[in-house]
């Protein structure tokens, strides 16, 4: 009995999954169009961008930080890569690299302000949120970049399995989740991310450079936002300076719903995928039910608070 309990994942890991299944069950009774492979494929497409941003967000929240600028950095990346292609005629791989470079650079700025200037991540990213937004608007002249080469939208293409269309971008997102999960679970740098979030002082005392870990996390998060930029361009077929506004908070929502503790050091990145899917399922299901989008936002808000509450209570229980 005891050994069985030890083998099962803890409630924090299982909870989000149960919530997802319950939500799916509910919407299946409300709309006969909900339970179809094509609809699930659509939900995956809808969460592709926010899901990829949320991987980076998970890394940061695992270190007990938070990134409020993630969606804006993603928007900047998509503008940089599309404009590099459109204005200078750069080939897609070069333009994409420059776009991801820009988002990684922003991650580096966030990381340096957190580690070297010792500012709280909340304040730093509140600042860079506005800076990234402003740069995006100034650089694009608030204009959508529509001249996008095929190399940049390739990930928006789909292939078929049976009757279901699956986007290459969705496959990329799922692969990134799997890789990040392995990285966090099986490698020394991955474990150090948990250690820093768990107890920065204890980690530093073992000789791990906590600054290096944090800096690496913020840069890596920037790279994930850059990949999300590419997915966004692929999905919309354009560089949109106003992208990322819903994704900004939705990414944090996905992480929290996925059971990662806002206090750092606890959580599994695959939970974030489940969290992103919960948000996606609610949006999709409520839309199919014909519920106004304002209610969808309301429901998301309630879900986040419930998730944080559960996190808080489970932590008290552990004491």
């Amino acid at each position: 009995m005891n050994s069985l309990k030890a083998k099962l994942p803890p409630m924090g890991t299982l909870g989000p999954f149960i919530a997802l299944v319950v939500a799916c069950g509910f919407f299946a009774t409300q709309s006969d169009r909900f339970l179809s492979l094509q609809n699930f494929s659509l939900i995956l497409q809808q969460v592709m961008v926010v899901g990829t941003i949320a991987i980076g967000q998970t890394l940061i929240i695992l270190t007990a930080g938070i990134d409020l600028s993630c969606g804006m950095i993603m928007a900047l990346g998509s503008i940089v890569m599309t404009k590099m292609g459109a204005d200078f005629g750069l080939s897609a791989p070069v333009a994409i690299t420059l776009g991801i470079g820009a988002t990684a650079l922003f991650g580096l700025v966030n990381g340096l302000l957190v580690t070297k200037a010792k500012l709280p991540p909340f304040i730093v990213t509140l600042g860079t949120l506005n800076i990234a937004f402003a740069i995006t608007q100034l650089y694009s002249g608030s204009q959508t970049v529509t001249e996008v080469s095929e190399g940049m939208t390739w990930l928006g293409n789909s292939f078929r399995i049976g009757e279901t269309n699956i986007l290459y971008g969705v496959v990329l997102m799922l692969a990134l989740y799997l890789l990040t999960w392995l990285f966090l679970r099986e490698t020394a740098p991955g474990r150090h991310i948990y250690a820093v979030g768990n107890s920065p002082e204890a980690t530093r005392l073992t000789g791990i450079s906590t600054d290096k870990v944090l800096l690496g996390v913020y840069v890596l998060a920037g790279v994930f936002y850059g990949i999300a930029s590419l997915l966004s361009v692929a999905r919309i077929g354009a560089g949109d300076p106003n992208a990322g506004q819903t994704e900004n908070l939705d990414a944090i929502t996905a992480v929290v719903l996925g059971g990662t503790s806002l206090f750092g050091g606890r959580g599994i990145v695959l939970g974030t995928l489940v969290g992103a899917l919960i948000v996606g399922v609610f949006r999709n299901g409520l839309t199919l039910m014909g519920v106004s989008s304002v209610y969808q936002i309301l429901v998301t808000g309630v879900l986040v608070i419930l998730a944080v509450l559960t996190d808080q209570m489970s932590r008290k229980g552990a004491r």
Partner: protein
Amino acid sequence: MSTSPNAQSPLVIQAKGLVKRYGQVTALDGADFELRAGEILAVIGDNGAGKSSLIKCLAGATIPDEGEIYLDGQRAHFKSPIDARRAGIETVYQDLAVAPAMTIAENLFLGREIRRPGFLGSVLQMIDKKRMLEESIARMNDLKVGIRSMTQAVETLSGGQRQCVAVARAAAFAQHVVIMDEPTAALGVKEGNMVLELIRRVRDKGLPVILISHNMPHVFEIADRIHIARLGKRAAVVDPKHISMSDTVAVMTGAKSVDDLPAQALAH
């Protein structure tokens, strides 16, 4: 009790004339220090006596302004705690020493995870969980720490058990010396005794231990010699078997001079 080390035991750490100033404040004013092989040396002193500055110099956490530190007779220059650790000096801190949500095995190896062989370990930095688990069990058994599962999170342990994990980690990796800063301060009686027992086993395995403590009964229970710090210097090194607790405290606070002590009270 094993035989206490005598004056013939070689010096593991020796410090001569350490000076450390913080602005106007002189924390260390020519402090000497000697740790012998195979002993538990307690370091006691009032607040501001310079004991924590002394320990920080030995652990590499501060660099002394003047003076020399020798490790096994060789001059040592520690610029950071990592330097000291590479030289085989491990420090256990009062708390903050463990990552609560991580497993015991992970905590034991935090910062020096065993890598998987070949490409997976060297390039991908993948860790060998199985070997870390086996080694953890072996090391904890070696020190007779009675914790069954190495895969449970440290936060499921009691305070004393957590401190045992921290001590075991230090003992497992220290080549030369283990420094313990108030290891029993936050613990109850039973838990404190558990940690003391463990410290003794570390010593009996051949590792000398420097124990900083305010708890006189604990100091008298396990120390082989007691280093009394006072006014930034070493006031005396006494032998707990031949001096009373009250005399020790009197020297520590300056109520009694070292010259007033019987000759046999002093340790050599």
